[in-house]
């Protein structure tokens, strides 16, 4: 029988699409926190993108279904052990987002040291994924899902969405 490797698990995880933005996988989004192989047990920990994201259980189930059968026992859990941030999205993830008309998030940074109130001075910006122009206007901080912000491109006169920097 073929011995299961961590590489094989990561390859399988790379095939699980995000349910809301299916062009990117859970690996592209940096949702996979740990992969542990311990004899018969394969254990994967995932990081929630947003605390209130309604897709979390769906993501957990899709990952469980994809890994089913790879080990005697498969456990998939969500954890808040480290916060997911949009900085975890891979360069590949950025490229795929841009190709499908989403502006990737700017750097989120540590975001933990300063008082939260200081963020009222924050001014989100985005580069148009269609024409590459930086001449864009924020239309709405909130969009069709919790992880998206809406912009308008002043050059090509198109609306577009940005994955939030969090």
């Amino acid at each position: 029988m073929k011995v299961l490797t961590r590489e094989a698990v990561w390859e399988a995880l790379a095939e699980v699409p995000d349910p809301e933005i299916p062009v990117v996988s859970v690996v592209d989004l940096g949702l996979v926190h740990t992969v542990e192989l311990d004899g018969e047990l394969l254990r994967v920990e995932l990081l929630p993108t947003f605390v209130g994201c309604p897709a979390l259980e769906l993501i957990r189930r899709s990952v469980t279904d994809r890994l089913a059968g790879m080990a005697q026992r498969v456990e998939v859990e969500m954890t808040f052990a480290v916060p997911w941030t949009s900085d975890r999205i891979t360069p590949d993830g950025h490229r795929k987002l841009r190709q499908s008309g989403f502006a990737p998030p700017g750097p989120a940074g540590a975001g933990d040291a300063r008082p939260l109130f200081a963020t009222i001075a924050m001014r989100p910006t985005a580069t148009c994924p269609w024409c590459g122009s930086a001449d864009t206007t924020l239309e709405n901080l909130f969009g069709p899902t919790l992880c998206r912000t809406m912009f308008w491109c002043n050059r090509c006169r198109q609306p577009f969405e940005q994955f939030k920097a969090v």
Partner: protein
Amino acid sequence: MTTGDPAATGDPRTTGGPAATAPRAPEALGGPGGALLAPPVNQALGELLLAMADDEFVIGYWDSEWTGIAPVLEEDVAFASLAQDEIGHAQALYQLLADLEGGDPDELAYGRAPEGYRHARLLDHPRTDWAFSVARRFLYDTADAARLDALAASAYQPLAGVVAKMRREEAYHLLHMHAWVERLATGGQEPRARLVAAMERLWPDALCVLDGIEGDDLLAEAGVLAEPMAAVRRRWLAGLAPELARLGLPAPPAAQTGACRGPGRSDDFRWLWEQFTMVRRSDPEAVW
């Protein structure tokens, strides 16, 4: 309970800065590898988690009342997202409470009588008009931000993890509500008058968001909370003061009196409770 001194007179450069860390590095509590909590600390933490969860849960339900009837379509989307974030935060906090004390998060959220909720009385008001909802959200979000700052380095590991996520999301709430407060405050006579009236009415109740937690001093000693709630409240008000002065908006009263977190509840909250428990009460044993 009576709040003595909001004292928003401190220098914001020192009092409005990052929440003071506990003087000594506190022992890690809870979670894998963390120490157990002493019973009085455990009880105070339960109080804090329930109060925070109920705050987020109830404001989330009030704000969802705007879905479909907000002033513009973008605001429909925004307020629905804010509400969804808050109910998600409540879910995570009810789960932490269930992990701490046992019980079921859904039962905590939906299974209590109205008198059993511990949200601040700021959230006993109905949504009223748009300026009122904006004023309430702004006061709530800025107070909640100060509370989350004071929990960012919490010794209670499971809470620190959830708070780290919440803080990143709440940054968008603050940015959004601040933009609305500025728009109404500078947007002509009627919006300004409505905003000012709402803030004057809400201020005493807003002070309750950072009050009414039994044993907050014990939480501060154990490093669960960076400092007692009275100090968190001073930090909040000191940070807010320059912005209120710039926009010419009402300053907080020197004190508030009366119970902050029930058990007496308004008829408006009882109406909301009827709404959000309606489906569950129709068949409490249903499996979803």
